[in-house]
């Protein structure tokens, strides 16, 4: 861990891990699909943070390029997710994924 930096990189990793697990918890616990999508975005962005931090450690730009790629993909995912949520809950009163359970068994 010889890279010169102001803040030790492990703090970034810990932060990203915390963000990641908040994302996981959000997906499991929240009932609003929009919030769930936001939680998934949290997971993605936690990965982005880790990627960029590691890119600093290794002085390898691949991590940053990767993060850029992830941002683009995540945006597409958000758009599609939003579209699907709109279609599913167009006529519903509450935006609640627990109400969408017609398929089971």
């Amino acid at each position: 861990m010889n890279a010169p930096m102001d803040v030790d990189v492990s703090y970034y990793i810990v932060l990203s891990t915390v963000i990641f697990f908040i994302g996981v918890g959000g997906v499991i616990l929240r009932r609003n699909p929009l919030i769930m999508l936001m939680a998934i975005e949290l997971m993605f962005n936690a990965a982005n943070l880790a990627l960029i931090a590691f890119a600093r450690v290794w002085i390898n730009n691949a991590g940053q390029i990767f993060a850029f790629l992830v941002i683009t993909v995540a945006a597409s995912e958000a758009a599609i997710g939003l579209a699907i949520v709109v279609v599913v809950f167009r006529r519903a009163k509450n935006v609640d994924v627990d109400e969408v359970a017609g398929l089971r068994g």
Partner: protein
Amino acid sequence: MNPYVPVGIFLGVAAVAATAFVLVPGLLARRKPNPAKSEAYECGVEPTSVVGGHFPVRFYLIAMLFVIFDVEAASFYPWAVQMHALRAYGLLEMAAFVVVLAIGYAYVWRKGGFQWR
């Protein structure tokens, strides 16, 4: 000692902590709802409509299209930075990218995606 061992330990701690933060309030918090508590508070006046307000579906659709084209436009940025270095190769690549984007744009347009019916 491997310098990343603490990181591994942190990972575990973080997982537990993050999960706990989300779970603990649900377990510990006292819940005694009564009608008055459940009521939405708006300056002492009873709300007459849904608090969040309903946007028309078209709003979301336009917003989504905006997001997509907006983010794709962000891909221009790295190219713009290195435009002179990349020369004709970069121009070609970007031209191809724009053509693809344009076909998508035409598709949305023809299918009436931009119309505020």
